[in-house]
């Protein structure tokens, strides 16, 4: 957990010299002085002026606390505010033990989307979005007194990195080793503190494992994650049990709320643009989560990582340069990662079907109907819909693993 009584800055600030000049500070001013001065100068919108990739926790006068994320950030902030107090962490694992899983979030993961604002994995645990800044009042009672999230337009026009030598991407496309992948899934799920739902996560894990240098420079431009073309339930009816089926309308509601937000932002947009909803959603919510997951994987193997595109100017340039069609590449691999002919002990499809006999503890039991005749129907569609079938197997298996060992339950 992060200490809420002291100022915390994690990450990097990339326009320090400009800020010192703007705020008329001493050349040797510390980050603490700089952050406090920036807040005094610009108030809750101060993260628009601070370029970089960071989280800030800033105690204020009168028992208030400010928490914020940079406009584009590979860091995350999770909090729980209830009768027991205010708990803040930059890692979801702090809230994992004995957590109650939000069924809606599993639904969202099943559609191939990442989890973002308003719908996180654990009930009662919220997450800050990139560019969000909140102020909490601790006494006389705990309440949220200010909550402001930068619009995508504000993020794109926020302060950008001071010019520096661009680093060369050193995360090469290492060979994916499918035989090792099955037994890497539990580790990956524990690193992410969420079920493995996208196959790029597994790919990236192996890239980091095979990497020999301590610093990773990720210069890959944003790749928009595609939702799945067919739902799992349409591939094998009755696979999802009632709690998941019931929440599908809620998922549609979330999407319509987000679409309304997109329309409102678009109405206020003062520059000509061809932004579509998918790109807006990706840049506003999903990109940061993807980066954060990559950061968690790198950190697990004691490697530092930086993201070249974690900069407003670069994202803006990327957005203006390439037609939307060219950016909309899928992150799901084209070729299957797993084979039906793998030995049964490391065969992801067999293992998913075995959930019925083994594992299969409260959470998965209530969500999935993995009886062999039903799950076999899904697996038989692997040649046509490989990434969907594989994603479902990964998700159900790792959800069961996490739920079993961290004692999760369902609402």
């Amino acid at each position: 957990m992060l200490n809420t009584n002291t100022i915390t800055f994690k990450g990097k600030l990339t326009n320090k010299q400009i800020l010192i000049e703007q705020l008329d500070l001493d050349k040797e001013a510390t980050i603490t002085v700089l952050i406090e001065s920036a807040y005094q100068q610009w108030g809750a919108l101060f993260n628009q002026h601070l370029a970089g990739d960071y989280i800030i926790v800033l105690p204020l006068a009168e028992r208030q606390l400010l928490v914020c994320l940079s406009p584009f950030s590979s860091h995350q902030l999770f909090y729980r505010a209830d009768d027991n107090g205010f708990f803040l962490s930059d890692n979801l694992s702090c809230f994992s033990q004995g957590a109650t899983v939000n069924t809606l979030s599993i639904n969202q993961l099943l559609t191939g989307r990442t989890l973002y604002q308003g719908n996180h994995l654990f009930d009662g645990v919220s997450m800050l979005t990139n560019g969000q800044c909140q102020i909490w009042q601790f006494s006389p009672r705990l309440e949220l007194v200010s909550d402001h999230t930068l619009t995508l337009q504000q993020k794109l026009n926020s302060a950008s990195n001071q010019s520096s030598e661009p680093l060369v991407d050193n995360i090469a496309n290492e060979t994916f080793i499918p035989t090792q992948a099955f037994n890497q899934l539990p580790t990956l799920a524990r690193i992410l503190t969420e079920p493995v739902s996208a196959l790029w996560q597994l790919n990236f894990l192996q890239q980091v494992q095979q990497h020999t240098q301590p610093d990773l420079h990720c210069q890959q431009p944003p790749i928009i994650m595609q939702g799945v073309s067919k739902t799992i339930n349409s591939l094998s009816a009755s696979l999802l049990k009632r709690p998941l089926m019931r929440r599908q309308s809620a998922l549609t509601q979330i999407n319509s709320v987000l679409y309304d937000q997109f329309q409102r932002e678009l109405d206020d947009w003062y520059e000509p643009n061809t932004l579509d909803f998918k790109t807006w959603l990706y840049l506003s919510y999903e990109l940061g989560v993807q980066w954060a997951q990559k950061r968690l994987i790198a950190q697990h193997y004691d490697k530092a990582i930086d993201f070249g595109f974690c900069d407003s100017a670069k994202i803006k340039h990327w957005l203006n340069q390439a037609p939307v069609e060219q950016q909309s590449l899928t992150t799901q691999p084209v070729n299957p990662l797993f084979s039906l002919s793998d030995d049964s002990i490391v065969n992801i499809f067999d293992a998913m079907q075995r959930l019925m006999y083994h594992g299969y503890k409260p959470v998965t039991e209530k969500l999935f109907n993995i009886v062999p005749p039903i799950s076999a129907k899904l697996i038989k569609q692997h040649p046509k819909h490989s990434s969907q079938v594989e994603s479902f197997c990964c998700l159900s298996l790792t959800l069961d693993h996490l739920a079993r060992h961290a004692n999760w339950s369902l609402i």
Partner: protein
Amino acid sequence: MEKLTFLARDGEMLAYDDYQLGNDRPIVIFLHGSTYNARRYANLAKKLNGDNYGACLLNWRGHGGSQGRVGSVDYIGQLEDDLADFIHHLKTVTHQDLIITGHSAGAIICLRYINKYGCNDIAGVSFIAPAINGPLETVRYPHASASWQYRLSYFRASKPVLPVPPNILQYAPSLNSLAFFGAKLLPFLRHRTILTFPASERMAKLEGRVLNYSYNLMLSCDINDYPAAFNKITVPTLLLCGANDEVVHPQLLSTIFNWHLPPSIVKEIIELENVNHIQVNNAAVKLVPLWLNRHFASSTEQTVSESETVAC
């Protein structure tokens, strides 16, 4: 070494080779593999003694010097009850930590013990080439009938079952399928031989091996719900196996290690190149004491030094 006995809950006297040292270090309770007895594992006990660990090599009932029906047990699960009785017996005479260890089917008895009794009375467990033969996926060389078993389990066609290499086949026990299904249906047949291990009768007699197993005995040293059993482990755990093991699938221990052992426990996995199911015992003689030194020696020494500080 002393040859001692203890009283099991059914009144039978079960034998063990006692290598206790009378110091404060943990005692390793070792369970032999199927057909064998404690005598074969004396090297491990001697090496453990050399590293100042006590050891007790337990003979399964009906094996070695233990009483009991040869080649059968009264009910499925009696062997883990015997282990529980032995642990209870040791707890009444010593305060030292107890580590349970087993080779092959002996490792499965340790696992069944944990599944039934938990880890409250033990401080650690090591599994040497655990022979989990019940489930379809854990077997290294599936039986010819595996294809239809696979179809029944998964509702899909399996990949072709490859023939077992002849050099492996000569050591593999032969199962009388008819007798097996007969015993499954008719309980009064469950003491009859259904499994026969290949070995020279004369050599087996000299070594005190038991070559014929009943339905009850065969199922007492096997486990189907192994994931749940491994989930229950709460103490430091060692998984040890040879890459050329003829019984254990080469990926089994890695799968158990990653998927089924709780992430929170202290656990180690050691896979040895060019080592088979029997040769792994020679490696265990070196590796088990080293594992104990890594996880138990320091805590004992720390306890001693702390108590010395208090005494000062």
